[in-house]
């Protein structure tokens, strides 16, 4: 079972959370999710599956712009 950490700037609505769960299930199958709230990412989402980081945070986008 894959243990996944999801970092957000604010809690998600139930629809979006359901969409995220569907995406995680499709990708990883059986898994557990740990949510973290971190306002410093400004927005977007960061997913860490233990090996790989999917960084879709606004903070990283701004860093890329810089």
């Amino acid at each position, binding site marked *: 079972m894959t243990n996944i950490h999801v970092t*957000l*700037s*604010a809690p*998600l*609505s139930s629809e*979006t959370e359901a*969409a*995220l769960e569907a*995406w995680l299930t*499709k*990708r990883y199958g059986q898994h557990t999710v740990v949510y973290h709230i971190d*306002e410093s990412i*400004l*927005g*977007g*989402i960061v997913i860490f599956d233990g090996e790989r980081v*999917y960084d*879709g945070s*606004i*903070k990283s986008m*701004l860093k890329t*712009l*810089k």
Partner: protein
Amino acid sequence: MLGIDWIKILIHFAVFVVLAVGLYLLLYKPVLRFIRTRQENIQKDIDQGNALKEEGEAQKAAYDGKIAAIEEERDRILAEAESRKQEILDEARARAKEESDALIADAKRRAEAAEEAATAQLQQDAGKIAVDIAGEILQREISQEENEKIILDCLKAWSDHD
């Protein structure tokens, strides 16, 4: 007759002849020999003097030739030195001009590079400031719906990518 004593005259003539012959033999010849010897010595001295004079003149001519050659060599060396001096001065001037041109070009290049670096730094700083401001605005202004739309777009993009 005229009272002339021919015997006495004859005796006097004889004495005169004997005296003349004696003088000729005893005095004239040695004096003549002395005079010739003296003349020969004088001539020899004159010849020797002439020879010495000619030798001196020859030596003087040789020295004059050597002096002329030395002066000619001196003039040649001076001219060569002057020419070499001029060459060295020309080379030094050319080298100094080349170095000063290189220094000017280098300074110009450095100034341009510094200007470009300053401009680039300014642009980079301005970009960072703009992004920081954008970040602060986003943090304040981004709505829940917009944030979730960004998240859904990310998920879709990652799915498409894989």
